[in-house]
């Protein structure tokens, strides 16, 4: 059984804990063990926190990586933001000994910790596609409905693609393939691949601008006729779910892929935490 250090981040455990319980249940079902990272913090967020101070951003991320390194495990995240920060910082520190030395000085003096550059950071969609495999996912599907799904990749799962090397950033398929393996239909829609609008500190500073981008995506999804939005990032998830409550003109249920797989696998619905969603999930 493969084992990963499970990085929780902020939005999932605190605003959509149903994504956390779904992830734990789904990976248990698929034979992947998730081990808690005691004392881990915010990743910190690649848009908003990196914008303020890149040294602090790297030092805090290095502390999280050092926790996983001590556990002797690679990191698994279910959030594009956490993935981007931890992947990018690990990439920098794993390949640049001088930078690692500088960040480790801060880490040693402040936390008595050290990061030696050995951790790999994995995104759960990529892990499902590459390691678990579509056949294993298909074998767990128990009936369920064939829903028309608007798959939203978000930005930081695949990009920057020159270091992430997971899929074509313009025409990706890995996430769609998983949704289809779960018995759903992934529907194409205009400007699929566009940002949800929330990232980079835009939602915090200019929420009206963020919401305009969200509205454009929702309009395009509605035109394609979809039953559900499927995301792989709690921040996109929040933006689509809360955004629809603010816009009032859309009612498309929003599911994180872990929740969608939970439904497809026939897991206990009470474990999916769907009742906190702003847009009612009647699926």
């Amino acid at each position, binding site marked *: 059984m493969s084992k990963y250090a499970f990085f929780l981040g*902020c939005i999932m455990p605190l605003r959509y804990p149903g994504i956390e319980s779904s992830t734990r249940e789904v990976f248990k079902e698929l034979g992947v063990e998730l081990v808690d990272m005691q004392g881990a913090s915010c990743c910190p967020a690649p848009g908003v926190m990196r914008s303020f101070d*890149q040294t602090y951003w790297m030092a805090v991320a290095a502390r999280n990586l050092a926790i996983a390194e001590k556990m002797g495990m690679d990191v698994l995240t279910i959030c594009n933001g956490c993935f981007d920060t931890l992947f990018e910082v690990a990439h920098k520190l794993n390949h640049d000994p001088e930078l690692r030395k500088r960040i480790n000085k*801060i880490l040693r003096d402040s936390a008595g*910790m050290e990061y030696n550059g050995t951790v790999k950071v994995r995104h759960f969609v990529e892990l499902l596609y590459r390691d678990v495999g579509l056949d294993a996912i298909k074998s767990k599907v128990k009936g369920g409905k064939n829903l028309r799904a608007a798959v939203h990749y978000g930005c*930081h799962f695949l990009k920057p*693609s020159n270091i992430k090397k997971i899929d074509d950033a313009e025409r990706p398929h890995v996430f769609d393939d998983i949704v289809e393996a779960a018995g759903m239909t992934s529907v194409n829609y205009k400007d699929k691949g566009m940002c949800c609008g929330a990232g980079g500190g835009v939602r915090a500073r200019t929420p009206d601008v963020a919401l305009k981008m969200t509205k454009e995506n929702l309009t395009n999804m509605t035109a394609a006729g979809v039953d559900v939005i499927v995301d792989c990032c709690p921040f996109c998830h929040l933006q689509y779910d809360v955004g629809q409550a603010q816009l009032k003109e859309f009612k498309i249920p929003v599911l994180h892929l872990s929740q969608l797989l939970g439904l497809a696998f026939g897991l206990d619905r009470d474990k999916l935490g769907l009742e906190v969603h702003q847009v009612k999930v009647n699926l």
Partner: protein
Amino acid sequence: MAEAKEPNPEFTRKVIEAGGKTVNLCFQCGTCTGSCPSGRQTAFRVRKVVRRAQLGFEDDVLPSDDLWLCTTCFTCYERCPRGVEIVDIIMALRNMAVRKGYMAEQHRNVAKLISESGHLVSLRDQDKQLRKKLGLQETPPTVFSHREALEQMKKIAAACGFDKLVASGGK
């Protein structure tokens, strides 16, 4: 006749040192602006931000609200025919802007949250109740459950001068 501004290579050099090392590769084709989801909704033109960084127009670029309309979606970065790492340039400029006191109150509040709790989102009673109902540990096993972890986070913030930055808003 309008007077042309003098370029300031010193500022450009600072941008390069702060992480915007590809800034001079830009030949202003505008693929970035044409790809920008935020620029579709606003007057934000990412090409202009890069041009101002290139010419060293510090006073045009650092106080500008435009700098903060980028969602860091990386679409321009992926499509740039010159391999300009546009998001890295924007990050370098934002770090410099913040040090000059251009930090929005909303952003300062976000930064305060991580400084004080180690997370960007608060832990409320209703969150604990829901976590319990879902069969999860009421308080996540993160900094919230480990006092010494929060101390470490505070020391990291002090070592980077981040605590002072948040307290003063760079002013």
